[in-house]
């Protein structure tokens, strides 16, 4: 399973390195979202700094929808899906590999968005460890839930419009907990972040387990 996961993750990341869809389209989109938030909320740096945590996670969530869509789009061309199904790779391994590739891409995106939040909104990072922990756990949760729903929606003609509707209500706990942990880190009240960090971990575990169980049948179903 782990070897298969490694193979699939390496494949997805190689495709990204060669096509650069994430770098050329998804990352600029995330930065654009940060600018749009500033236009919507006004140029008041204080207001932006106090909302920075939530805006960071919203930008990440919107970008994650695109990343998941891209991750399944590369399987839809030229019957790649059938190839994947017939390859004899463990479905759980495929799930882990694709999720890992999305995690890596989102992590790179979060570095850019995080820097954007600091520079544009004047957010002050006082608890770097908490920020990194929350981001890592939240990203794993988003990627796992995204893979499960991506597999449900992929192959359907309406998948572009359906995926956000299915995925976003489910990842609300990540948005809430991620925002709270980041808030705690930005304001320096690190202890407030701990229960939320645990919630992020729980979410990541639950959705990784669900994805591992469901991915095989979903791959067969479509």
């Amino acid at each position, binding site marked *: 399973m782990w070897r298969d996961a490694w193979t699939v993750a390496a494949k997805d990341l190689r495709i990204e390195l060669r096509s650069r869809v994430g770098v050329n389209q998804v990352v600029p989109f995330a930065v654009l979202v940060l600018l749009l938030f500033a236009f919507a909320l006004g140029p008041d740096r204080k207001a932006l700094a106090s909302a920075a945590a939530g805006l960071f996670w919203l930008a990440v969530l919107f970008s994650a929808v695109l990343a998941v869509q891209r991750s399944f789009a590369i399987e839809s061309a030229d019957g790649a899906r059938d190839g994947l199904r017939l390859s004899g790779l463990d479905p759980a391994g495929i799930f882990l590999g694709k999720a890992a590739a999305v995690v890596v891409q989102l992590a790179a995106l979060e570095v850019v968005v995080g820097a954007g939040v600091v520079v544009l909104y004047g957010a002050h990072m006082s608890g770097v460890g908490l920020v990194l922990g929350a981001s890592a756990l939240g990203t794993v949760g988003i990627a796992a839930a995204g893979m499960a729903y991506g597999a*449900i929606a992929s192959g*359907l003609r309406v998948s572009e419009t359906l995926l956000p509707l*299915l995925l976003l209500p*489910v990842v609300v706990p990540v948005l809430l*907990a991620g925002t709270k942990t980041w808030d705690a880190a930005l304001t320096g009240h690190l202890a407030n972040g701990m229960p939320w960090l645990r919630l992020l971990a729980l979410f990541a575990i639950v959705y990784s387990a669900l994805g591992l169980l*469901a991915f095989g049948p979903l791959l067969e179903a479509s």
Partner: protein
Amino acid sequence: MTEESRTRSGSGAVTALGVAAAMAVAFTVWLGLWVTPPDAFQHNLVRLLYIHPPIAWVTYLALGVTALASALYLWPRTRSAFWDRLAGASAEIGVVFGALTLITGSIWGRPTWGVWWTWDARLTSTALLELLYIGYLALRQVPGSMPGRGKRSAIAALIAFADVPVDHFSVLWWRTLHQAPSVLNADLNPTIHGSMAWTLMLGFIAFTLVYGWLLAMRYRIAAAKDATEDVALAAAVAERRLEGGTAGIVGAKA
């Protein structure tokens, strides 16, 4: 697919259920609007509370039935189109009653709290639940061939169901970690008048009967629709056969 394409599911039992539901609702309306006295604190607003909790109960019941039916569909031994249709029918009723829950709650909240909406934990998680299942229904609407579509829907229903407690508790924490307990507990004052308690009880029974009747009717429509599709497919296949005499498309039933 339609091993049980019953044409007469508007059978005696369902009709009896419908009549019982209608009578129970009528009786609830009569008790709620005329017999019970106005509340000491909430005056006539209390009458909304005879239907709001029963409607909310039906929402959760319906979505629970959807999860159960989806699990039974996924279980290989009990897999049949029956569970798939039941899950879809129940989810549809659940979403309608969920919307009614939010609407009746909002109507009650406006005079009581002075606002149509408040970011209370229970309100927020009910709204999220509603959107979660609207997504599920949207997924069900997507056309597709049957075994795949059923499996996909059932898995989506179970993942959504797994999310209900996570959503609920995270929203609960979100609202209560920095705020006094929810205002919703003011609902039921401890000294509840005898006829009021009976009316509320009857409300629960009435709306559960309504749910059962709607479920039977909605199931019947779903089964009829599947049967129509099968008939249309068989007719199309027969037509092609007559046209070309080619036997190459026999496998088209899938």
